[in-house]
């Protein structure tokens, strides 16, 4: 009796294990590095660079973020207005502080000014904030890459 020789069956399955390993590794990498702090940023503001820019160990207490665009307008809480109207923009922020039983002196005004805005406008902004009792300011800069 003659038996027919069986041909070995070649499996067409790729070994997916290394690929899945790498993919999970990449996902873990991007998940760790994803930046959720973009709410502080504004697309009209390009910060000046400074070699001394280093994130502080402790975040500022009671921060009020004020963006100053290159055209000289201010953005507080997502609403854009002229510098002259900063008082009405800051009033709700100060009300929130009052609810926390804090005064304007406890607040930190974080000024995120565009790199080409006139210095006088930044000073103008500071003096208007001073009139409202604010006295601690932080000029935000970005790292020199």
């Amino acid at each position, binding site marked *: 009796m003659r038996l027919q020789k069986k041909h070995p069956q070649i499996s067409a399955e790729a070994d997916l294990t290394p690929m899945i390993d790498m993919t999970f590794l990449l996902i873990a990498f991007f998940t760790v590095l994803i930046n959720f702090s*973009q709410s502080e940023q504004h697309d009209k503001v390009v910060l*000046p660079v400074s070699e*001394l820019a280093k*994130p502080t160990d402790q975040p500022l207490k009671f921060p009020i973020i004020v963006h100053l665009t290159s055209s000289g307008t201010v953005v507080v809480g997502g609403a854009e207005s002229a510098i002259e109207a900063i008082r009405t923009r800051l009033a709700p922020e100060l009300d929130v502080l009052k609810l926390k039983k804090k005064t304007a002196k406890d607040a930190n005004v*974080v000024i995120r000014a565009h790199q080409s805005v*006139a210095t006088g406008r930044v000073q103008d902004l*500071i003096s208007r904030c001073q009139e409202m009792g604010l006295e*601690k300011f932080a000029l935000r800069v*970005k790292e020199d890459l």
Partner: protein
Amino acid sequence: MKFRRRDLGEVKAELQMTSMIDIVFLLLIFFIVTFKVSAQEGDFNVKMPLAAAGGGPPPDTSKLPLKLRVHAGPDGQLGEIVLNDNLSFGTDFKRLRQHVLQLVGDSAGPIKEEGPEVEIDADFNLRYVHLIEAITAVTGYRQGNDVIRLIDRIKFSPPRK
């Protein structure tokens, strides 16, 4: 002649990977698209209480008061840097830093309330980036990965119009 069948009842324990790989790739694409390399940010702290009720400037408690005048050229470019009304550094912030380093020496340090203080008086139309350069020059310098602090107290003169 009788042959016994060998592969009788062998069940392959294969997982269905397709849907998992779909989701994993979807996540990967999402993270790649939303990934944004952003530079680290830092702050220069400026404490500026409002002038006293009498109208005069707040009392100067510093043992080493410095006044830095920053002139602007046309278009807001950097014109000239003058320290204490008599010492010009042209537009060279490195020389200014060297001078401040000599002045401050070891006096910069933990006694922040009485430490050296610099008052910056800049032209109205000077570009903000040059003000930051001036603040950077007097505030400190970077040595490797560390920041060496020179002057921590900064204040501004009233704006010039």
